[in-house]
């Protein structure tokens, strides 16, 4: 069978720092999308959204439909796109700052309503594009440009938060493990409902965590994917602060009604404007 080569490149110059973890995510995502297209998803039905930060530059580097929106609002844009056309496959890219600082309300509510999008959070554990300030997941004590004496805040555990928010698919990956990232993206995309994939991603310029992650990450399979208790146990193995092992893989997965189909089922195809008008006579 003759297969047409799938081109996912653009002519936009790449401005990530050499060695950035985002390159691994870009490569893995291209592989995942190629695989989706090869197995029948029309390329034109794939849409990615981004916000502002190194993570979202990925939209400029991918020859796919995309919308780079406002900082922290990537998820809201994605939700609107999915509601506008439920046939589309929508991926929301953003960083830990946009996802867990500026736009955390959207993350929680998108999980709660089980909107059918895949959120891919690049987690370098600080604001990088703005030259290094702390975010919600910066470890306590880390010196950044806005915390020269070390951050005094305890980091948030986003996976615990998502379990509490009823996210129906939660996974963690590491940008250096490209094959795992690709597989988790595919699994998340296939999941009907809200899927969240955290990708740990070293920032070589402001917080180089390559060795730290290489020593600690391990692939873990939750024996009972529908159990919040075992998911919580996995999520709590690492508190985003210091030591301990860092589990990767799918932590939680369950099926529940999807927001878009529930919403649209309430609206009939045939409208009756005149009937509504009559209530005013």
């Amino acid at each position, binding site marked *: 069978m003759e297969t047409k080569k799938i081109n996912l490149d*653009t*002519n*936009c110059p790449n401005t990530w720092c050499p060695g950035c973890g985002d390159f691994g995510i870009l490569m893995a995502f291209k592989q995942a999308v190629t695989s989706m297209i090869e197995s029948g998803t*029309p390329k*034109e*039905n794939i*849409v990615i*959204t981004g916000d*502002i930060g190194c993570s979202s*530059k990925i*939209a*400029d580097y991918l*020859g*796919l*439909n*995309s*919308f*780079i*929106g*406002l900082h922290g*609002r990537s998820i*809201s*844009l*994605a*939700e*609107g*796109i*999915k*509601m*506008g*056309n439920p*046939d*589309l496959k929508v991926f929301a890219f953003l960083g830990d700052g946009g996802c867990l600082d500026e736009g955390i*309300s*959207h993350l*929680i*509510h998108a999980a709660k309503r089980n909107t059918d999008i895949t959120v891919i959070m690049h987690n370098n554990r600080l604001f990088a594009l703005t030259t290094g300030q702390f975010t919600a997941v910066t470890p306590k004590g880390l010196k950044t440009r806005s915390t020269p004496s070390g951050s005094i805040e305890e980091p948030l555990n986003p996976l615990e938060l998502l379990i509490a928010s009823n996210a129906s698919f939660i996974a963690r990956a590491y940008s250096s493990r490209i094959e795992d990232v690709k597989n988790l993206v595919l699994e998340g995309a296939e999941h009907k409902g809200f899927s969240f994939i955290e990708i740990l991603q070293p920032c070589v310029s402001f917080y180089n965590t390559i060795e730290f992650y290489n020593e600690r990450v391990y692939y873990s399979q939750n024996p009972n994917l529908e159990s919040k208790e075992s998911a919580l146990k996995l999520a709590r193995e690492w508190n985003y602060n210091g030591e301990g092992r860092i589990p990767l893989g799918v932590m939680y997965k369950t099926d529940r009604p999807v927001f878009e189909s529930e*919403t*649209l089922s*309430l*609206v*009939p*195809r*045939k*409208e*009756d*404007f005149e*009937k*509504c*008008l009559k209530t*005013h*006579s």
Partner: protein
Amino acid sequence: MKKDYSIIVGGAAGQGSRKAGLIIAKIFKKLGYFVYIYDDYQSLIKGGHNFSQIRISDEFIAGRREKIDVLVAFDKKTIDLHEKDLNTKGILIFNKNKNPEEKGIGIDADSIVKHLQGKPIMANTAMIGGFLKIIGINWSIAKNVLEKEFGEKDNLNMEIAKQAYDSVNTLTKIEKSKAKNPEYLMTGNEAAALGATKAGLDIYYAYPMTPASGILHYFAEHEKDLGVVTIQPENEIAVANEAIGSAYAGKRTMVASSSGGFALMSEAICLSAISETPVLFVNSQRMGPATGVPTYSGQSDLLFCINPGPGDFENFVAAPSNSEESAIWTGNLLNWSWKYQTPSILLLDKELSEGTFSVSKNIFKGIRKEKELLWNKKGEYKRYSITESGISPLSFPGTKDALIKTSSYEHDESGLTVEENEAIITAMQEKRIRKFEEMKKIADSEDAIKIYGNKKSKIAVISWGFTAGAVREASENLGLKFVQPILMSPFPVKQMIKALQDVEEIILVENNTTGQLGVLMAMNGIYADKKVLKYTSRPFTIEELEDRITKAMKV
């Protein structure tokens, strides 16, 4: 002689005075009258004081009078507050079981309800029943409207109304009107919802905030009939960004909030502008700044809507004054948003949003969905192709062989971020400027302003938004010219200058402290000579306007 009556129905929150007011209004509509209802309530759920003022006339009206002909009081407070406004021949109707010693006509409302084993709130039904008899409405007309309101199966309310009707005598007789019998009664919010629907609205997003919430309630209640998907996200920022996302996917979207909530959408309006993604934003102003006076009137957001966010861009702003204009201009703005791929702002206010106005049947027949400029599917698709008009053809994700890349960053024709190439950055800004020039043509061609009253008068009164309704009437009574701009951005400079060319004195009337329309006019080279401003958070009455405009003329 022109018939013109005003009735106040008042009580504590939860006593149903608003519903009673609407029923009374519908009966007068049936008698052929034009109706306007002013609703006054506080930001509380039970207690306090609520009232509806129903004004009926042979002619279109959109403002309240100070003096009233009938006062229907559900409680003592209503009598205390409004008895002073009764005309010398005015009638006071009250609940005898609550206020045994008042002068006027008492209705045994509570006793009738108790006797028929109804709920206490049904006392309002008894009050309506008694009122209708007192002003000489035939039972057959009353019955017809009441049955429609209560539902034919609700015998209890009908029995209560009838017993109260029979318990009192007729004092006066309000005859049928010879007016043209306007077809509908609706609030400005409801009219906006219907106008948008006719112009092809697909999805409505909103977070609750008075006085814009009426639109959300209306769409939610009529979702099945109107076919407009109605969604309440977690906050105004989500609302605006989701609406932009849906528009990018090809669906017509509208969002609404009030002043402070609208301000939360500011950054998203900029995104709509730079990404050229059409969204209709509705701002139903309250008296500001910030939380302000939440359930009362103000017109203090005009200049903010003209410049709703950082960056060089222009957006449409229209400020209708009554429900007919609300329907028409909501339709216009939604269509123009898509035609020009731009944010639009419909500027309402509390009195327009929640006031009830007569609407003629033909209004909705004139509103239809106008087609946007779509990609012809030839050659390579570029979302931001440079064109002479500045308008680039639209295409939506899901279209074969088209890559739709959209951005909040300055971008090239393909939608990719540009930072280095100054020529592209310049070209893209100029493309949008050309589009704004196209938008300005609308300000010259459409009925962007209205002119009423004595066209030969050397004195012109200018007002806008809801306030315009009362100012028009007062100006007509005083024999003056009245000019009302509806499109505020792009400002209809040519039409305004033409309307004012033979005028020697301009009197500006607004519900704010600074005269914001005056500032906007001055930016366009038109200067008001005098200002009549009110900022008590309550709208002008006709009498008050006649008095203040006359005084202004003498200064």
